[in-house]
């Protein structure tokens, strides 16, 4: 009788250990939630830009301007020209720019009204024009300088991966129009999507990785050079951008 009790209690003990182990695993899973959340999102939109295929034609800039009636002097998406070296050792490359839809967006964490937010369903970061007060704090926080105040509405705007198009199954306007197919847009959660394949197989880079924002716009063959980088090498570098200040921050 006593032995039986012991056996049962042993069984219980084993059961309890099992439950404990399950709990421990669960706890570990919770602690790793931040990382898991990326995968758990139903859709994980991202863009890959193959700069080797970009000819700097600005079709994307124009398509974007047209799509959103972006006022003169401000840009949701633009192309930078990077020119460097001294003849005959020179290079010129193109760097299409847009919002990086970061995994850890600084713009979202500083927004005092909650007007700018990262969508839980697909990770797109957007600004609610009915809530934004135009305080420009997000413009200070963005390391990529992709935000601007629309002079007509006074609210802050930026690239939203063409939210109105992608939710209807269309590609963003810039991707749709890209002549060299340099811009590729898709869902990273789908292993068969072109973006997922490119990110997995190509040597992709992101802009200003050291800021820790974890961008969702990846570049292939991008020249990240600017005046600061090559000052030490004594190289001539000129970056033509289309920001109002005509200069990268």
């Amino acid at each position: 009788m006593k032995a039986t009790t012991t056996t049962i209690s042993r069984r219980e003990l084993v059961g309890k250990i099992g439950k404990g182990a399950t709990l421990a695993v669960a706890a570990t899973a919770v602690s790793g939630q931040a990382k898991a959340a990326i995968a758990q999102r139903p859709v994980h939109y991202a863009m890959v830009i193959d700069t080797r295929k970009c000819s700097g034609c600005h079709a994307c800039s124009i398509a974007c301007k047209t799509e959103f009636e972006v006022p003169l002097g401000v840009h949701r998406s633009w192309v930078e020209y990077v020119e460097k070296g001294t003849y005959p050792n020179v290079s010129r490359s193109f760097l299409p720019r847009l919002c990086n839809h970061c995994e850890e967006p600084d713009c979202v964490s500083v927004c005092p009204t909650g007007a700018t937010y990262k969508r839980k369903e697909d990770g797109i970061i957007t600004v609610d024009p009915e809530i934004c007060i135009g305080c420009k704090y997000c413009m200070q926080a963005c390391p990529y300088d992709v935000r601007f105040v629309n002079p007509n509405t006074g609210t802050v705007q930026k690239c939203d991966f063409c939210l109105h198009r992608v939710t209807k199954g269309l590609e963003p306007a810039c991707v749709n129009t890209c002549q060299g197919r340099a811009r590729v847009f898709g869902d990273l959660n789908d292993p068969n999507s072109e973006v997922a394949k490119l990110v997995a197989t190509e040597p992709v880079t992101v802009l200003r990785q050291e800021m820790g924002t974890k961008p969702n716009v990846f570049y292939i063959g991008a020249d990240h050079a600017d005046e600061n980088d090559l000052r030490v090498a004594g190289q001539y570098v000129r970056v033509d951008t289309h920001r109002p200040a005509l200069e990268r921050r």
Partner: protein
Amino acid sequence: MQELHWGLPVIGYLFLAGVGAGAYTVSATTLLRAGANGRQGDNFDIARYGALLAPLPLIVGTGMIIFELGTFQAAVANGDIGLFFRWINLFLTINMSPMSIGSWVLGVCILASVVYAYTFLSEKSRPDDDNKDLRRKLAWVGIPLGISVAIYTGVMLGAVPARPFWNTPMLALLFLVSSLSTGVAGILLLRALFAHGQDAQAGEATTDLDNSGYMLATSDVKLICLELLAIVLFILFAKLTVGNASEAISIILPGGALATMFWGGVVVIGLVLPVLIELKYVIPTLRNQQPYAMPRGTEIAVCAVILFGGFMLRYVVVAAGQMTGPMGL
């Protein structure tokens, strides 16, 4: 040339909010501690001037940042009435954004400072009059509120890694000390402008006035020395790193675009000059117990340069932060 998304209205706001928050804090501590000598009612005039001063710069400064809002500017440009009051959205929510928390703290601070000033409004205000209890309660509330407002301005700028010049905890400390120092200067200025005239007629009260003047001047010397220390640490910690912060700080170091403005306007005119003048009058009293008497004109000049220095500090910091950025891309 870089775009300055935050321009003069924000610079003016950071300065004025600092003066107001500093004046409220100094007034409240003086009321509660009676100028550290523990005798209730001492230095009541300082508490009164600080209380009457505080709401004004707080309200004017807050009005100024509303001008900087994109929606307000669009409202003016397009005549859209609905956009004028878009800033109300700040008070429909609260989140972990330093600006959100700051707006609420600022709002509460303005309300408290207005009521606090009201308790001092009558010229017959005495330490033991009818408003005594309300006044002391608001003084207790005012110290944390004033310090929070002064600190939050630095935290707000410091919270963005994309602005390496701002992204340091020293900035919040620097702004706090500068707020207290400019708050003291504001009180001294009010006293110099309004109290001296009354006491010249009263004759006897001059000693009391000079005693409280001595207390303010000595506090100011300490605060300015602390501020100089904060500036040294601010520069050291940026300069001693490698990369973004080090590159950014070079804009105020010799050869940088804002070096003259910083060393000339902030350090020499705004801090070193006033502290030297104050020491000239404070040291004889401190060492030899001679009666303290700073001429009224000198007092006004000292306050003016301290306030100028406080403004220049905000100007240089706000401009430098936006003119510099992370290196590379």
